[in-house]
């Protein structure tokens, strides 16, 4: 036990004195939460809208005012000609140009002729274009209804029925927890063990009566503590900065998260038994952990949308199960029993990975 304690103490000292690693360990979750929470979300904002009308009239000005008042759009001005409108799109001055024809809002509409509006959108960013156009149509038809009392001729797009800004933050938090905990635990543990191989200290540790499992366990303890700290950071930021509700049982969430952290640690352990240098350990961690965790876990794309082989593959991505747990416990507020299946899967993965890692850990150099 004393031996174990001094191992853990040594490990903590090494982490604390390595300022760069410390910064990554503790800073990464904060930065990622903020980036994903604020910057990367699929809602559309700051769409620059210009308009073109051959002859301007009060209705056009009112419509454009209404558009400019919407938080999605910035009104950038009027184009003198269709040519100018195209230039504005090309140069990026405007993302969308609304073109009104002469009949629109005319004092004496010519009988039998309908007013038409054309919306030009820069679709090089398809998401902004389609969402922007949809919102724009909605704004315009609502104005038209209020103004004339008539049923709108433009059908509002269904996409507007939910608010993307709110939803995306909610969706990212569970995924992000899955990603950050996996990366910090697995990558950092594997690098820490491989580093000892590289610097040669492992050679001395091996030629000692210390058992292999003790060396490994001692490596895992400090990273477990750091990860629990990270878990707290993420939860606090999510709830108090991003406004994600914590509707379920906090105790259940923390318990399953601790289990997930242990799974990640055992994966890191396994990687370290196979890899020889810190660089390869890092690369393998990124390839086998980061990408599947981001792409195949439901973090960004729903797993149900994956092609069948990848769908089955996603079953072995630990984050896939963990994310479901977090969604259910944190956002949907379901009781623990609702995530029993996922928890069991994570537990089974942990046992398997730990067994593999300990078995594979070589107490020789070859």
């Amino acid at each position, binding site marked *: 036990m004393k031996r174990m304690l001094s191992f853990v103490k*040594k490990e903590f000292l090494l982490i604390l*004195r390595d300022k760069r690693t410390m910064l990554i360990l503790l800073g990464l979750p904060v930065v990622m939460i903020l980036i994903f929470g604020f910057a990367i979300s699929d809602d559309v904002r700051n769409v620059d809208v210009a308009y073109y009308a051959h002859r301007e009239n009060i209705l056009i000005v009112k419509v454009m005012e209404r558009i400019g008042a919407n938080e999605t759009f910035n009104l950038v001005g009027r184009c003198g000609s269709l040519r100018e409108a195209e230039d504005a799109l090309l140069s990026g001055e405007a993302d969308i140009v609304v073109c009104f024809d002469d009949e629109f809002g005319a004092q004496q509409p010519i009988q039998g002729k309908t007013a038409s509006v054309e919306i030009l959108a820069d679709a090089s960013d398809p998401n902004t274009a389609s969402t922007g156009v949809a919102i724009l149509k909605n704004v315009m038809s609502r104005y038209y209804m209020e103004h004339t009392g008539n049923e709108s001729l433009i059908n509002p797009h269904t996409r507007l029925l939910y608010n993307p800004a709110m939803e995306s933050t909610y969706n990212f938090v569970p995924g992000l927890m899955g990603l950050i905990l996996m990366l910090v635990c697995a990558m950092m543990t594997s690098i820490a063990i491989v580093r000892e191989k590289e610097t040669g200290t492992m050679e001395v540790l091996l030629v000692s009566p210390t058992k292999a499992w003790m060396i490994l366990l001692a490596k895992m303890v400090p990273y477990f503590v750091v990860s629990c700290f990270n878990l707290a950071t993420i939860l606090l930021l999510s709830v108090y900065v991003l406004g994600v509700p914590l509707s379920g049982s906090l105790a259940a969430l923390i318990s399953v998260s601790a289990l997930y952290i242990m799974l990640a640690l055992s994966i890191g352990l396994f990687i370290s038994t196979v890899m020889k240098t810190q660089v390869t350990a890092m690369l393998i961690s990124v390839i086998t952990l980061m990408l599947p965790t981001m792409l195949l876990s439901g973090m960004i794309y729903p797993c149900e949308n994956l092609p069948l082989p990848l769908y089955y593959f996603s079953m072995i991505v630990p984050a896939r199960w963990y994310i479901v747990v977090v969604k259910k416990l944190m956002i949907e507020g379901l009781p623990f029993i609702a995530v029993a299946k996922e928890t069991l899967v994570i537990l089974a993965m942990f046992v398997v990975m730990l067994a593999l890692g300990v078995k594979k850990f070589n107490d020789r150099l070859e």
Partner: protein
Amino acid sequence: MTGLGVEIKGVVKKYGTLKAVDDVSLRVSPGELFGIIGPDGAGKSTLFRMIATLLLPDSGKITIGDRDVVGDYRDVRSVLGYMPGKFSLYQDLTVRENLDFYASVFGTTVGENYHFISDIYRMLKPFEKRLARHLSGGMKQKLALCCSLIHRPQVLLLDEPTTGVDPVSRYEFWEILKRLSADGMTIIVSTPYMDEAYKCSRMAMMIGGKVIKEGTPDDIIAGYNGKLWKVSGREVYGMLLAVKAYCGVVSCDSFGDSLHVVVRDDIEGLRSYLREKGYDDVTVEATKPTVEDCFIELVRDGCSDR
């Protein structure tokens, strides 16, 4: 304290097709200070790692006392002190923290065995709070030695402990080793420096994975076959080139400020040759060979045998 003997029998270690250690057999008696001398790439480190239970020999057998390094590796590890060739302490821990850590790894404490390392640790004491990465080369090696001694091993393996260390520290280091061996510890130490051979009670010369000679330093020097001449003069480098160009010369190596020369037949021929070339202040005298001369002769003979 009595150390344990180490017996190496017909050990082979291959990396792919390369034989890093090629049929090496050695016997080290308890309490001996045994040197393994050879250039880089001779297979010394591989041999050490096999003795240290870290690598498995492809064939052959190594025993420490009566423990087999493969079958009884756990027992072997508890009697062994091993200092790898690479500096293998934690750079971000202080001197004292490193020592405390290694003491606990081996299930002991610094307090318990302090008297055992006190001679060496006294030199490190003023730097106790310094991070290992900020120590000088000699200090690092002394610390590493302390760490490998803290559990009072019966057999100590030191892989090139003096490489990259200044002459004063090297001298101190060898004095420490001599004391430890006098106290009964078996020490096997490797070095690329020929002049350190004299510090060992016995030694083996290794090259290309093979042991080409084994014995006390005196035995090895006595085994020198040729007649060695020391040629000294003012312009040593010019002379070196001139002697090498002489047809009757077998070998010529610079040795400090003089040359060690072996000639095929009569030395008078070389004397007059040098006089012809304008080196008239040259003194040529018979000299006793050193371990280095023996090594050069052995390598030369080895080459001509092939």
